[in-house]
């Protein structure tokens, strides 16, 4: 038996690519959750609302310090007991989204903290309404600054999707495992799965790095 069977590799490629689509879907949807929820967390933290501030802090710390896999299991096994049953796909999106929201919230926060005090004072001097201060002055300056960092987290999420095979989501690695178990050949499926990740995430991170450099130069 050859170490690498090209025919077999080409046979399984379409199935793997199809599963890759699922991986990308989860990444995109999860990113939407992470980017929006993270922004909400960051702004809420900045408002220093008593109690809510402490609760949010504790939530963020717990989520950041414990494994995503355990959080996914939590959503998958605990929520149904409270009458909320979500599909594995949705659990994946929500789990990834919340987990990474705790990361992006720190990124947004760093971006907001980097806005000079003078900007806030100018807003006060102009008596701008609070909402307008955020949407018109602070966030338009803070968010572009942190886009590269956010991009890095999106790439990280993409690479963490395979965790969801533990709750039965058919993403690339799960598909590779299924294909391998049919023929007892794992070399091709797992290697191709690895290469697919590299093929997408490496150029993406190059892009982010270029964006980073352009920001640094500007």
């Amino acid at each position, binding site marked *: 038996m050859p*170490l690498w069977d090209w025919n077999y590799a080409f046979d399984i490629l379409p199935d793997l690519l199809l599963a890759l689509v699922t991986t990308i879907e989860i990444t995109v949807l999860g990113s939407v959750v992470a980017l929006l929820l993270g922004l909400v967390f960051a702004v809420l933290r900045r408002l220093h609302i008593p109690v809510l501030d402490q609760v949010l802090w504790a939530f963020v710390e*717990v989520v*950041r*310090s*414990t*494994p*995503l*896999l*355990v959080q996914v*299991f*939590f959503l998958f*096994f*605990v929520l149904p*007991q409270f009458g909320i049953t979500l599909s594995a796909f949705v659990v994946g999106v929500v789990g990834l989204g919340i987990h990474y929201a705790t*990361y992006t919230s*720190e*990124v947004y*926060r*760093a971006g907001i*903290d980097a806005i000079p005090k003078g900007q806030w004072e100018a807003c006060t001097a102009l008596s701008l309404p609070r909402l307008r201060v955020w949407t018109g002055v602070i966030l338009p300056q803070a968010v572009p600054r*942190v886009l*590269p*960092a956010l991009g*890095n*987290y999106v*790439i*990280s999420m993409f*690479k*963490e*999707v*395979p*965790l969801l*095979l*533990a709750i039965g989501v058919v993403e690339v*690695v799960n598909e*590779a*495992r299924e294909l*391998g178990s049919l023929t007892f050949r*794992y*070399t091709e499926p*797992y*290697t191709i*799965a*690895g290469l697919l*990740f*590299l093929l997408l*995430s*490496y150029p993406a*991170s190059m892009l*982010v*790095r270029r964006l*980073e450099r352009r920001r640094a130069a500007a």
Partner: protein
Amino acid sequence: MDNLPQIVSVLGDGIPETVIATLGGVLLTIVLSFGAGLLLLSPSRTVRGVTRVYVEGFRGTSEVVQLFWIYFVLPVLVGFQLLPLFAGIVVLGLNHGAYGAEIVRGAIRSVPRAQYEGAIALSLSPAQRMRRVIFPQAFVEMLPPFNNLFIQLLKSTAILALITVPEVTRQAREVLIPNYGSDTLLIFGVTFVIYLVLAGLITLGMRLLERVASARLGRRPSRAARQAAKATAGVAS
């Protein structure tokens, strides 16, 4: 709540595996981070290029794929199977070492040029410059991002559950869920607490190290550095 003692005991049985995986992974990560980090600064293009392949290869693929590849594919290629825990430690180390290499490289490059020049003016050799002047200063800068990296690694030990290592997460999923299906909230509550405590211990240790290292530079640990590290945790670009 009646089943709490059993739940704690079963999860407790997984703690040694989680701790061994973490410590082993951290050790390998440190070795690879410094090795590869210094090689990334080598004057030789070839050396830098080869090291880049390692760093980008492991940063560019999924950790789960790496784990499955080493556990399921490598045996076919080399003819012997690694013990699950050992395979896990190897992957944790290789993966986080790739991120750590960038931390080391970045910290060394962030030492001001003036420090190199001060060392040259004293006629120190290139090796002495690195060992005596640059590295000790870079080291302090590395500690906050390494703290994050080690916590990242601790969290990653959970994926060893996928290759049958009986660590905390696998104990929860494979032993407790089938047997105490009505106590899921409690099971995962205790699981979270275990990981929180372990993460806390890592942070405690690293803060101590940070304090010692900062004192040697005659300054106090920097809150700002920690905040900055927090905003790049897990991607350490």
